[in-house]
């Protein structure tokens, strides 16, 4: 599946932009502020109904405008059109697939699989556990609609339950405590499912991580991902341990008015040759690991969904040494469709190029195809 065309209206710095893409590599070239990342972000919007740099959709609307529109055409076995329209004054976002309005996120995520490699990925190996959970959850969610739905349910349960914990803190009643029991049971049920799925995922994902790591670094470093959860129990013991901890920490949860037990507190640990990357890794090893994780995501989604994801590489080559950049670039010549943003192609003479590469230059709102 490839994205063959995109049209932007009042999206970030682009008043109006129409771009044609080809299969294989699409280079988007432009200086700072020419809107390269905006094009990448628009593609992310088409695939996930959300942006990756903006905190709110309103930030993505052109200055002094009220509404942005993104339209894309995907070509594969069939042709699919996707549209995202956001109106700031009403804070209303609509997503359309083939002109049909789609209201549930679960009907969007994973339907046009996408993998984004960007400088923000430093947060995956160097940031908070929340960043790691977000990464892992987004990979599984693109591969499994059921997982994504359960994750949404779980997050809703957390919100409802913490609201109830706060109410109990203020004025406790017997009714409220039995209601808390019901919310706890649902939390354990959905949360245990999430833990089990994450465990299963990490088991198979590790192989993809090793393969991807080897692709970038030929020297023998062995990467591994570990999943740290609720006492690291397995099978039926996950539910039991979850219930035990919920029961044990009930009063503490009420006193603090917040959820203290569950997969929302899990972490993922990355290791190289058995050493914790976070403690012992060099900057270079972190970077390589981040790239390897994104490639692993790409291969995993391709295998599981049966559709090769669109691969987005935003501002990545400036951060890598020539050798690794070359290795990556070499591999990318095989993918169905990738988008690569760079400021100036002449700085990257080492990149492996094909004659069929689509080279798009953005300058002052003008588009030229080289």
């Amino acid at each position, binding site marked *: 599946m490839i994205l063959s065309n995109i049209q932007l209206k009042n999206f970030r710095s682009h008043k109006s932009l129409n771009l044609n893409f080809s299969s294989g590599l699409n280079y988007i070239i432009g200086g700072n502020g020419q809107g390269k990342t905006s094009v990448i972000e628009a593609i992310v919007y088409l695939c996930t109904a959300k942006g990756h740099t903006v905190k709110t959709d309103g930030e993505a609307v052109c200055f002094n405008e009220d509404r942005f529109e993104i339209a894309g055409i995907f070509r594969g076995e069939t042709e699919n059109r996707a549209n995202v329209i956001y109106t700031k004054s009403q804070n209303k976002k609509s997503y359309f697939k083939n002109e049909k309005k789609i209201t549930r996120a679960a009907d969007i995520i994973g339907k046009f699989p996408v993998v984004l490699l960007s400088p923000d990925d430093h947060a995956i190996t160097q940031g908070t556990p929340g960043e790691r959970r977000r990464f892992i959850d987004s990979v599984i969610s693109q591969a499994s609609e059921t997982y994504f739905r359960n994750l949404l349910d779980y997050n*809703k349960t957390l919100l*409802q339950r913490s609201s*109830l914990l706060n109410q109990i803190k203020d004025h406790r009643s017997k009714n*409220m405590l039995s*209601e808390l029991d*019901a*919310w706890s*049971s649902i939390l354990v049920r*959905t949360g245990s499912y999430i833990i089990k799925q994450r465990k299963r995922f990490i088991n198979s994902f590790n192989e993809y991580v090793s393969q991807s790591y080897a692709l970038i670094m030929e020297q023998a470093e062995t990467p591994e991902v570990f999943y740290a959860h609720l006492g690291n129990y397995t099978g039926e013991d996950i539910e039991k341990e979850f219930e035990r901890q919920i029961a044990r920490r009930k009063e503490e949860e009420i006193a603090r008015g917040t959820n203290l037990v569950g997969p929302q507190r899990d972490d993922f640990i990355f290791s190289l040759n058995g050493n914790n990357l976070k403690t012992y890794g060099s900057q270079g090893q972190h970077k390589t690991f981040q790239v390897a994780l994104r490639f692993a995501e790409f291969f995993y989604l391709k295998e599981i969904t049966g559709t090769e994801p669109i691969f987005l590489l935003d501002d990545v080559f400036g951060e890598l040494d020539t050798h690794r950049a070359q290795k990556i670039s070499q591999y990318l010549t095989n993918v169905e469709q990738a988008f690569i943003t760079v400021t100036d192609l002449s700085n990257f003479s080492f990149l492996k190029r094909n004659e069929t590469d689509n080279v798009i230059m953005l300058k002052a709102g003008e588009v030229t195809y080289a």
Partner: protein
Amino acid sequence: MQIAQPLQVAVEELSKLPGIGKKTALRLALFILKSNKESVDQFIKSLSELKSKLRLCSRCFNLAEDELCQVCMSQKRDKSIICVVEEASDVIAIERTNEYNGLYHVLGGVLSPLSGIGPESLKIKELINRFNSENIKEVLLAINPDTEGETTTLYLAKLIKPLGIRVTRIARGLPIGGDLEFADEATIGRAVNGRIEF
């Protein structure tokens, strides 16, 4: 834009309806304007009676024309089983299947601490009271299976089971997060028949 005042008011009112934008409201208003007087009067009468003649059944909180709804008054229903639903619209959805012959109880919502809806805000006390005044042997929980609905189902099961009444729930034939109201009749029919013991 200059529009005659009565038309403007009608458009304003019609566009308050769910799913009706200004454009559709204008089309509807112009259609009504063109219709003959009798049919417009009939239309107004039906709307006004909808509000004046309907109320909630004092026993099950289903829509009713009298003190009790048609289901509660019927001699043909199985009076030993109560099907618990979220809203009156769910009663209509289940009745359409012709697969269920017992009584109903409309909760008027589901548990949602975020919206300030606790057990006291729902018709739960009224449900428990029915176990004293009626000869109920089974409660069938038919609440939409989303997060809040599942929690409410669990809460009610734990509350009712110790009272010595059989508690069942509808089979998970419904899609996760699917509303009874929007499911097709065959699916609801299967769900109501394939009850699961708690």
